């Protein structure tokens, strides 16, 4: 039997209708435009940042001076960013993972599960400025006096690392719930049953099999959430007290610090930039560049973690 010579045919869009070809061209252009915008932002910030960033800025404390050569560095805002990220993540991680475990592994009654899902969506959709104002109203109540400090006349200040970190935890929470849920849902049912069939309880199955299997997903969501905390401004400006340096209040070390106020890289940029409230554009560019590096770094980490998923036979 004669066999036809193998032919290689590649579909070409040159045979398409004109309108289809224009549509395809617009899709290309949209993608390229986004690349250009991203490259423009990073490139400009790198240019400006490298121009003004000096290593000593990273460990010098900021000083209040209108002369940029005397206003110090941004050590305190850097510490503030790290502290808020740690506090926010420490709150969001356990709450987010527990919520996702309940939704996927239990989720009954179903109306309650739907309610919880909507709750998470509402939090995800609430503008940060609304969360900030709500947080201020909430944490100025007497029962939350321990989270910040009480001024004379018993008024609760309501602004501190703890109160800002709590509200920033809410910003990170939807990312952690979402990615943990997705990770748990991809684990086939028979894997759960295999653990139960060995005489394990549901609790043991969740702790020893499901959560370790979902770890890459949990980590991805956590890092994305951290990126949001690092980049948030509204909550920091309103709930962190906006003091240039870290201001501790009375109390044991660390506790006194987190009950106190401070600033972060975002609020530092806002307060120094001519576009914001200050007139120290060199400091603002340098700090903004560092901020951008941190956020891009976190996103790269999230991308790497996301690739480590367990592949199951389903």
């Amino acid at each position, binding site marked *: *039997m004669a066999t036809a010579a193998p032919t290689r045919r590649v579909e070409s869009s040159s045979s398409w209708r004109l309108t289809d070809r224009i549509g395809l061209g617009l899709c290309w252009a949209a993608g390229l435009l986004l690349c250009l915008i991203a490259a423009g932002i990073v490139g400009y910030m790198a240019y400006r940042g490298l121009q003004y960033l000096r290593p000593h800025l990273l460990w010098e404390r900021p000083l209040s001076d209108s002369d940029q050569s005397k206003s110090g560095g941004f050590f305190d805002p850097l510490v503030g960013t790290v502290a808020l990220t740690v506090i926010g993540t420490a709150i969001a991680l356990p709450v987010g993972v527990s919520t996702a475990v309940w939704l996927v592994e239990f989720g009954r009654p179903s109306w309650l599960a739907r309610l919880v899902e909507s709750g998470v969506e509402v939090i995800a959709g609430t503008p940060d400025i609304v969360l900030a104002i709500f947080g201020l109203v909430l944490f100025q109540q007497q029962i939350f006096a321990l989270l910040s400090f009480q001024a004379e006349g018993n008024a609760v200040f309501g602004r501190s690392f703890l109160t800002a970190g709590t509200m920033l935890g809410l910003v990170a929470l939807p990312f952690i719930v979402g990615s943990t849920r997705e990770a748990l849902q991809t684990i*086939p049912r*028979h*894997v759960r*049953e*295999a*653990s*139960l*069939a*060995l*005489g*394990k*309880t549901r*609790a*043991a199955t969740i*702790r*020893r*099999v499901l959560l*370790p*299997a979902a770890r890459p997903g949990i980590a991805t969501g956590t890092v994305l959430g951290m990126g949001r905390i690092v980049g948030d401004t509204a909550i920091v400006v309103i709930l962190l007290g906006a003091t240039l340096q870290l201001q501790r209040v009375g109390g044991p070390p660390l506790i006194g610090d987190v009950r106190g106020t401070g600033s972060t890289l975002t609020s530092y940029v806002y307060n120094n930039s001519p576009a914001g409230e200050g007139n120290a554009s060199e400091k603002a560019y340098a700090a903004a560049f560092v901020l951008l590096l941190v956020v891009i770094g976190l996103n790269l980490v999230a991308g790497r973690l996301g690739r480590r998923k*367990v*592949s*199951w*036979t*389903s």
Partner: protein
Amino acid sequence: MDELTVPPIRRIDLGNDPRVVESNGHRPAAVVRRRRPARPAGHERMTLEGLGVAYAAKRAVRDVTLEVRAGEVLALIGPSGCGKTTLLRTLNRLTELTPSAVRSGRLTLDGEDVDTLEVTQLRRRVSMVFQQPNPFPMSVFDNVAYALREQASRRPRRADLREPVERALRRAGLWDEVAENLDHPALRLSGGQQQRLCIARALAATPEVLLLDEPCSALDPISTEVIEELIVQLASELAVVIVTHNMQQAHRIADRVAFMYLGELVELGTAEQIFGAPRQQRTRDYVSGSFG
């Protein structure tokens, strides 16, 4: 081109072996039963009396009475949806994970009603291997050790678990292949090795009954052969119940075969009798390939 023409399906009379239906008219190689170690006739491990399972309005298993004996392989065969997997999952009360499932009838393990046992205890004594190899995303060692540890606890320590883990891996015929790589991720093993690891995991807690739900259906023929050999060897130490779609497999490894159809137990007998001289018409039709 003429060797490509397909001969018409013919049914040929081969004495009392109506199983043999081959499209090309050739007699297939006779099913070779796996050599089994000599063992005494086993006592009853589990008894099922009038067992039924319903999912809401659908009755998946109706009025099944049979016993599972130590030292033998019992195969459950039947077409898809006949209730054989549901019946298997009832034996370790895994059906209870489905909220709509309702069980009726009596089920005992060593004379004790399974409902009086703690479900975690029952499942350590009546262990199960699934259709898809499903090692947990941890090391080979930890997969087996997981079954030995107390619930979520990490105790006892690794050194104390070495011996039972090795014993379970040896019983599953996997030790020689993984002894050097106990700390490697289990999901990197081949499909056949993963399934033997799942068997090792199921054996670790030294169960009395081993349930297998189509354990070879996701495997290649060579891995299947290894696992079939293993099942026959294991049956000398415990009771094995296997669900299979594959009649040849049931014939090769089972001591007794239960044919189920539409949730009912149609016929129960030795493998020779079910495949050689089925008493019921429906069994005869099924094993001859008329339907299924």
